[in-house]
């Protein structure tokens, strides 16, 4: 049955929906921030029927002013603040802030701390990818896999809790090393078992999500970007690797123990949503492989943080004047921090560069044009947009 446009508008108004007719066929639709797929982020869509004509990203719902607040707090207190910038993997902001501070101080952190940091970062990557699988499968409508992923992530959360005392926000990596030592050998055995367990479950995910006909039909050929476009827009991480650029910070700018580890950087060429999803799937496998190597290597002996008398009085801990940029590879992309010190016990300026600021605003706006309304959450999820990165 054909329904005319004016009848639709009338029906929408009667049901309390605020559709704004822009002209005869075009409507403005506020996608988010309440929408499940956008996660505290809003996109203003101009719709022609079920096709997107224009998209305007509208960030700011999560702005908490961390960069400003960090200028009012002592160096070590900022860890408890800045890690909230990236919710799925809070170890990344901790690590970059600590690395930049150590570069200003000229500290070389002990081998044991390096091992622990690398392990924690890789555990964070695995748990963030599992979290992402959960989000993706919910948006595709294959719910079972998502619930499995959330359940397996819980095993890593338990390990984090034993190591750091917290499940989600660990407040663990500090300038100079880490806050606590590994609890016992039992933890290492549990880590080994968990890695083995999740590795054994990967074929199930393949079967349900990544080799599924539904996934291919939903994701193939949507949200396509090419190499040149991705480079110009500053896209990093799995999103740029899905367009054929083998850029991974762990390889390009090695930090911690990564030069000693053996891993591959998966690269695909299609640049569509499916390619981005598959790159993430292959990376999950590589991360588990890295964790296996780390467990086999075993933590080296020695102290777990720098032995420095200044660390005994943290509120008066001072950093000499200077600045440094540090970045690590997160599951979203190149996560960087620029830290400036003027010699006081508080940083002069902290700037966090979240990867989503590149692919979550301009790239998203351009990829959404021409997409169907049902594909909007899928494109968002395939880019792995993380709104707190943008808002900070």
């Amino acid at each position, binding site marked *: 049955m054909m329904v005319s446009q004016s009848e639709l508008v009338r029906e929408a108004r009667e049901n309390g929906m605020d559709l704004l007719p822009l002209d005869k066929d075009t409507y403005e639709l506020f996608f988010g921030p309440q929408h499940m797929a956008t996660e505290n982020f809003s996109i203003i869509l101009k719709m022609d029927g079920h096709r997107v004509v224009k998209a305007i990203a*509208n*960030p*700011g719902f999560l*702005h908490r*002013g961390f*960069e*400003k*607040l960090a200028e*009012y*707090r002592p160096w070590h207190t900022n860890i408890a603040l800045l890690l909230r910038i990236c919710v799925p993997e809070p170890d990344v902001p901790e690590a970059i802030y600590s690395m930049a501070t150590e570069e200003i101080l000229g500290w070389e952190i002990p081998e044991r701390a390096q091992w622990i940091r690398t392990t924690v970062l890789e555990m964070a990557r695995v748990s963030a990818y599992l979290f992402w699988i959960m989000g993706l499968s919910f948006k595709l409508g294959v719910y079972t896999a998502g619930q499995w992923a959330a359940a397996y992530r819980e095993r890593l959360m338990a390990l984090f809790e034993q190591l750091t005392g917290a499940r989600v926000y660990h407040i663990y990596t500090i300038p100079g090393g880490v806050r606590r030592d590994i609890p016992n050998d039992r933890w290492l055995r549990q880590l080994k078992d968990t890695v083995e367990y999740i590795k054994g479950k990967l074929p199930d995910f393949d079967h349900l999500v990544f080799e599924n006909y539904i996934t291919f039909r939903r994701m193939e050929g949507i949200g396509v970007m090419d190499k040149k476009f991705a*480079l*110009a*827009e*500053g896209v*990093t991480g799995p999103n740029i690797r899905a367009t054929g*650029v083998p*850029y991974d910070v762990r390889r*390009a*700018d090695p930090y911690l123990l990564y030069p000693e580890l053996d891993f591959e950087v998966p690269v695909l060429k299609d640049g569509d949503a499916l390619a981005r999803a598959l790159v993430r799937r292959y990376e999950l496998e590589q991360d588990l492989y890295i964790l296996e190597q780390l467990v086999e290597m075993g933590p080296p002996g020695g102290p777990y943080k720098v032995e420095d008398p200044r660390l005994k009085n943290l509120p008066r801990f001072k950093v000499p004047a200077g600045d440094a*940029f540090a*970045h690590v590879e997160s599951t979203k992309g*190149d996560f*960087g921090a*620029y830290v*400036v010190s003027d010699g006081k016990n508080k940083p*002069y*300026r902290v*700037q966090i*560069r979240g990867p989503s*600021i*590149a692919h979550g*605003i*301009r790239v998203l706006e351009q990829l959404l044009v021409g997409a169907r309304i049902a594909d909007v959450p899928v494109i968002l999820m395939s880019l792995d947009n993380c709104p707190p990165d*943008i*808002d900070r």
Partner: protein
Amino acid sequence: MREQAIVEKILKEAPYAEGKVRRERRVEFTVPAERIKDFLMTLKENSFELMLQITVVDWLKDGEYELVYQMWSITHRTHAMVRTRIPRELDKARMPTVRDIYPAAETYERDAHDFFGVYFEGNEKMEMPWILDDKEQGLFPHRKDFDMLGYVKRKYKILDRFDENKDNYVI
């Protein structure tokens, strides 16, 4: 040394700039504000493909903003900081946009404008709302002389719970 060669090559093409090697895979350049477009063009020709961020640092004592363009070269595997200084008075804090060289800069420039009030000439989205609400436009909260505690007290009406004269609160 690989980094030294990169710096020398770029300085040869852009004699108005100063440059040095900070450490392995980290280089640094200082350019005058009016030549920033030429310099970033030179960097792009020398395969610095990615612009990671534009950081503004407010040097209150010097009366200047320092703009740091964080660049990354995938080919050379090197990070470059491009520093430039402009006055921090709001009517004089103006820069040419580099959106036509690195399209990603548009977003970073909007960010810098919202929090510091640096106006990037030629960026069409400068007036578009970014993160801050309408009521907070024009406050430029990341400036060093922004009275954060006073703003918080007024906004959330908690004046009675704080001592106005005490200045070293850690909120």
